[in-house]
């Protein structure tokens, strides 16, 4: 299959692994180790699925970042969505959100009890549903990083211009660069480099990572989701670390450009503006979210239906917050694989198909050697 087979070539993988070993020897000689944060949930999943940790030199440690949009969505947001559904409003959502625990319930349980929850594969399904049921209020759960914000912005544009007055949006968008800034500044984590996301970068562009590179910064390498993409990304990072550099490098140039997708960015900024956002497990990061601009408040479900997104309650034993910051690995959590499994998730990182705990549970439980 084109664009797949050439990025899963065993011989090419062996060649890259030899280079990784050389870089690792250079780092070892300087008494250095490399802690690399992969920021994107799809990277986390691919790293686990291809067993990439098991082929890396021992001086390299991969830690997973907060790159799964479901995982970083606050409990209180789920509570607000449940409050809407309990009022008879149709809540339209991507399927990943269904089993995310709120303080006391989940959308899946709400639906089983008769609540109107519509699972969408594409945001346009919410639009079509709202248009087909003009007598019902429909709220779309608008979460995600830049990759998902772009198509939802297109939906917001349609709602604003095509006159579907019963469709509104409960926003909890997140943006990647402010999160990188916060994590990079956290003295407890000490990240040596970022493996930057593929699809998010297609929207925001490679230049968005410039503030984190350069003097005092860290290497930022954008990589695709295929196993060789990821190995090449790590190769680029180790080469920079071994040479004492900190540049932005775009390994995924077949998709990502320096400036990103200007049409998508223009559409997003027409309807949305930066706002402080609360990240589950991490806390509030300034200007790391996107809210509807004041002139489009009629599309804001929180305003229109008078619901407030307040801090929710999480399971006291759940370590998702530390996992999302890369401070702990999933097996460090007492609940991992015991009370908390993909069939019975307690924390959000086990719910989402891109969650770090789900990736570990599915592909890397126990030692693999």
């Amino acid at each position, binding site marked *: 299959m084109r664009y797949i087979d050439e990025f899963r070539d065993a011989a090419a993988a062996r060649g890259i692994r030899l280079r990784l070993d050389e870089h690792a020897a250079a780092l070892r000689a300087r008494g250095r180790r490399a802690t690399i944060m992969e920021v994107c949930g799809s990277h986390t999943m691919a790293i686990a699925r*291809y*067993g990439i940790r098991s082929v890396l030199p021992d001086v390299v440690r991969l830690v997973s970042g907060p790159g799964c949009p479901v995982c970083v969505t606050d409990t209180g947001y789920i509570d607000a969505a449940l409050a809407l559904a309990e009022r008879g409003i149709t809540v339209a959502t991507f399927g990943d959100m269904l089993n995310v625990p709120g303080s006391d319930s989940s959308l899946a349980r709400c639906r089983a009890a008769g609540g109107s929850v519509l699972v969408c594969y594409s945001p346009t399904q919410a639009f079509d549903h709202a248009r087909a049921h003009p007598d019902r209020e429909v709220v779309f759960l608008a979460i995600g990083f830049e990759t998902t914000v772009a198509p939802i912005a297109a939906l917001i544009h349609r709602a604003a211009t095509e006159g579907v007055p019963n469709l509104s949006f409960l926003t909890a968008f997140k943006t990647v660069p402010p999160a990188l800034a916060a994590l990079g500044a956290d003295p407890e984590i000490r990240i040596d480099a970022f493996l930057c996301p593929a699809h998010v970068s297609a929207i925001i562009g490679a230049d968005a990572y410039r503030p984190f590179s350069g003097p005092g910064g860290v290497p930022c390498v954008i990589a695709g989701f295929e*196993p060789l993409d990821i190995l090449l990304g790590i190769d680029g990072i180790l080469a920079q670390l071994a040479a004492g550099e900190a540049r932005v490098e775009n390994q995924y140039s077949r998709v990502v450009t320096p400036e990103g997708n200007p049409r998508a960015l223009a559409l997003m900024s027409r309807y949305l503006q930066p706002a402080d956002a609360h990240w589950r497990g991490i806390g509030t990061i300034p200007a790391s979210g996107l809210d509807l601009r004041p002139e489009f408040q009629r599309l804001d479900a929180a305003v229109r239906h008078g619901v407030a997104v307040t801090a929710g309650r999480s399971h006291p034993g759940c370590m998702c917050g530390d996992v999302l910051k890369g401070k702990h690995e999933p097996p460090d959590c007492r609940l991992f694989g015991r009370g908390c499994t993909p069939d019975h998730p307690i924390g959000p990182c086990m719910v989402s198909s891109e969650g770090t705990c789900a990736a570990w549970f599915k592909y890397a439980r126990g030692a693999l050697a």
Partner: protein
Amino acid sequence: MSESTILLAHGGGGRLSRDLVQREIVTRFGDGPLRGLPDAARLPAFTRPLVFTTDSYVVQPAEFPGGCIGDLAVHGTVNDLAVSGGVPRWLSVGLILEEGLPIELLRRVLDALQAAARACGVTVATGDTKVVARGQCDQIYINTAGLGEALEGFTLGPDRIRPGDCIVASGTLGDHGAAVLAAREKLALGPAVRSDTGPVHRLVQALQPLAGEVRFMRDPTRGGAAAVLNELAEDHGLTFLLDDAAIPLSAGTRALTEILGLDPLHLASEGRLLAVCAPAAAEAIVCEWRRHPEGAGAAIIGTVLAPEAGSGARRGRVLMDTVVGGRRLVDFPQGELLPRIC
């Protein structure tokens, strides 16, 4: 006037019932023990021990690329007999029809059922037809039970599996699940996917000369190859190591699973066989299977590892060496991946 759809009266025991059975069942299956529609089939005495199984089929949609619920209902049951080391002989067929079912669809399903039974060398010996009101089932459900005679020479069981044994697949994996998913969701992504629904009993019979070397066989249906191997791992403390690059996959299934992020090892096959065998016999099994069209894609996909040292309960796992040289776990599918695939 002949009706074009099934009516409740077709199941009422009156004239319409009798007409339906005469026209659609007796014409197709009335030659053997069904002749004269007795209440029970009278079968000749068997010389070998019997194998006996039953399965219900509720696949949605009833017709999909590569097959339909009719041939599926034969293959599924015949294959269960075959992997138990049996030669399939007799089938019972129970039909549950929904009021409003187009009779044309019923005919296509029964034609496929008849052709599949003939190809598998099994005879429909007894049957039953019921009609339920609209909405009380989805078009058509079929139950089949199968009776077969045990082949000589096979002693199969998970407790015979040894470290060093090989795992052989008879062809591309996951095509049935992928085809049903694509048909149901009307997905047209990449190359077309066709269900692999088909019989495996000839592949089992082909192994008879090697029977002593075959430890275990299973058709990887619901839950796919991952579920078969994980059940063995969990119940018998076995550890399997698969080779990602060796797993046979059709282009269509590969494209679909890549795009949707599914693991083809979690998808069902309905015409494939997994065998665990002594290492010396693995190549011979692949050669033997490849002589048959239904085994053309046969390949050795992995091995059985020595039990893992460790504390606590003896519990095996399924591992996979990936194309980039890494190693990962192959788990059970999570939750209800795809309801009503068979």
